[in-house]
């Protein structure tokens, strides 16, 4: 195991050396082939999780602008780690808003100038004011409105009021809940408390990403009536103890078949029937369904746990690459990518532009919660819902308006991770 930590230290120590080498190579290249170098097409290294890195998006962008997107896919936690420890290893970062509490204080990200973002003023109010329609969205945890604005381009501090500089330009977000196999459960599920119901002993799962898993656990604890948190997204040590204790008791009683960490694991568990109720992400539900297996992203009366991701730009990015990054962000908000995401069950940041690129029946199904007037297909052409079906949870306003809390980094994060390790070891 020491090998692994050795690796991380090696890579950290190797960065200056590597940049040095690259620099040398660069000088050599310019010295020998100046023409080739100046005609160098822009390549943007896009750091994010595999879930958001769609091949079709990269290809379409390349066709539209000639800029190549090079995906660097790592896990949610590793995106943050890289942003903090290796900020020069990417040109564009796609990370979750909750990780900003760790990244922004390092000064590794640049505030994005909203004057250079064409559709900046059309970004949905979910991010800017925390409202959808007339409803105020639950803001427990790291709600995007708390961390989206920076005091300046080079600021390490969040601004409470809107400014010209955004930390991340939102790309995709969703309201998460439990996924279930209705064909195996055979009764309605309405509450988060069902995750720890003894009826599903050995058939439940929770995700093993501490900062997200603890939120799901908190929803369950509240639903079971054990405790009501003042802020689930920022627990005290005592609250963390209580939450983990509940999880450990369930684990010792054999409630969990498995825990999962990777998107594909959750799909496997559900599709194979090893698990019938678990924490899940929307595209995972879609993936199970496209195998022809019945799977529902079940709306629950306590509400949703929401997450949001966005594009950030490293502080050191300049020149052509910086322009390229802005071009990509602008292109992303321009509609095609938004429509593509909406068709997968995600939500896009600028709804107006996405609407223009979607068919009316698609918009009605995905965004308005209306019954499908014809078969709904994924961007890859897999059948997701038959005519007459209604989206789980209904319309955009119902789903986003029903959000109870957001993925978060707590003040007691170090303690929480330690306790989570206890849960895994129990």
């Amino acid at each position: 195991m020491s090998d692994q930590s050795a690796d991380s230290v090696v890579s950290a120590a190797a960065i200056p050396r590597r940049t040095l080498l690259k620099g040398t190579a660069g000088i050599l290249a310019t010295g020998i082939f100046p023409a080739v170098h100046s005609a160098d097409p822009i390549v943007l290294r896009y750091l994010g999780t595999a879930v958001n890195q769609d091949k079709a998006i990269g290809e379409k962008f390349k066709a539209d602008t000639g800029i190549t997107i090079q995906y660097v896919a790592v896990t949610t936690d590793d995106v943050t780690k890289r942003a903090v420890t290796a900020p020069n290893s990417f040109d564009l970062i796609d990370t979750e808003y909750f990780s900003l509490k760790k990244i922004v204080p390092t000064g590794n990200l640049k505030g994005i100038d909203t004057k250079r973002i064409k559709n900046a003023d059309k970004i949905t109010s979910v991010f800017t004011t925390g409202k959808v329609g007339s409803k105020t969205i639950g803001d427990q945890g790291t709600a995007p409105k708390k961390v989206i604005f920076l005091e300046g381009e080079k600021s390490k501090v969040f601004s409470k009021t809107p400014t010209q500089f955004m930390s991340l330009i939102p790309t995709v977000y969703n309201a998460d809940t439990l996924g279930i196999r209705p064909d195996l459960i055979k009764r309605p599920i309405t509450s988060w408390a069902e995750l720890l119901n003894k009826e599903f002993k050995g058939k439940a799962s929770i995700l093993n990403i501490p900062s997200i898993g603890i939120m799901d656990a908190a929803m369950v604890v509240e639903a079971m009536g054990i405790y009501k948190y003042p802020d689930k997204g920022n627990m005290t040590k005592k609250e963390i103890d209580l939450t983990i204790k509940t999880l450990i008791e369930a684990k010792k009683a054999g409630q969990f078949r498995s825990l999962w960490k990777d998107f594909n694991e959750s799909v496997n568990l559900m599709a194979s029937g090893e698990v019938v109720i678990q924490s899940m992400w929307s595209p995972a539900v879609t993936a199970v369904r496209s195998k022809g297996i019945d799977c529902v992203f079940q709306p629950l009366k306590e509400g949703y746990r929401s997450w949001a991701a966005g594009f950030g730009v490293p502080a050191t990015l300049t020149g052509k690459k910086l322009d390229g990054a802005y071009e990509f962000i602008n292109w992303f908000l321009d509609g095609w990518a938004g429509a593509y995401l909406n068709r997968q069950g995600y939500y896009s940041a600028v709804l107006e532009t996405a609407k223009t690129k979607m068919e009316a029946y698609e918009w009605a199904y995905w965004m308005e919660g209306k019954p499908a007037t014809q078969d709904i297909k994924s961007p890859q052409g897999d059948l997701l819902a038959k005519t007459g079906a209604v989206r789980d949870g209904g319309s955009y306003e119902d789903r986003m308006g029903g959000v109870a809390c957001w993925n978060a980094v707590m003040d007691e994060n170090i303690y929480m991770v330690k306790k989570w390790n206890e849960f895994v070891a129990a």
Partner: protein
Amino acid sequence: MAITVVVPRPAAAAAAPGHALPAWLQAAPLAAVFVLFFLIPLALIVMVSFWDFNEYELLPGFTFKNYLSIFEGCSSNAADWCVTFKTYFSTFKFCLLVWIITLVIGFAVSYFMAFHVRSSTMQTLLFVVCTIPFWTSNVIRMISWVPLLGRNGLVNQSLQRAGLIEEPLEWLLFSDFSVVLAFVHLYTMFMIVPIFNSMMRIDRSLLEAASDCGATAWQTLWNVVVPLSRTGIIIGSIFVITIVMGDFVTIGVMGGQQIASVGKIIQVQTSYLQFPLAAANAVLLLSIVLMIIWGLTRLVDIRKEL
């Protein structure tokens, strides 16, 4: 970590023939590589394990906080072990089980290949067969256990169809059993290679002598073959033990992420940027593994017998 055992070799060898310059020069490149990519990073880890940290940065200093935090709650209640003890116990348990099973299987396979297979072509062929588990990637190999051992997997379906069981066996997957199974499947090869190598060096006339003296097959095995294969057994054991001690991917996937391992704890800590804590854990793990290896090398002088 097995590397550390080998490290002193070039230096020792170079020192012996009167500090000749060419010998030093010959040893220099490898020594430089070790210093640069092994000793310096290791020293950094030890250093960082004494640092403090917050959410997003390391704070240089000198504190025992990280080590204390590893053992927090370990002394208070003997009935309910702390996470660290529980985790190490579980890791040791896997180590022991996997070591015994791979040793028995590895020894048997090597014995067969060394003493019963006569042609070297056949030996090579069988060796290639032994490497089959390594033909696919680690992750794919482990994920493919699910359709085999799962609740609705092949094994359960066959057993049910044969009428041997009513309900599917739950312990086949995401259990201690499946973890040990995957380990044995993956790492028996590391036992086979060194043991086979040792067996091939055994002078066949010794076996004839044993049988001439009236030893039974078992007596020959126990008194001649096993002692002479000792080097291979120890080297194989070092491989298996060091790998299992540090593994977290296999335990994670096969244990349904529900079984703790030291490696997993370190991985979670690094991904939450708690490098000093992770470093302290790594130093602890390293010292334990080094102690095991030191103990094993007492049993046989590897340097002499290689």
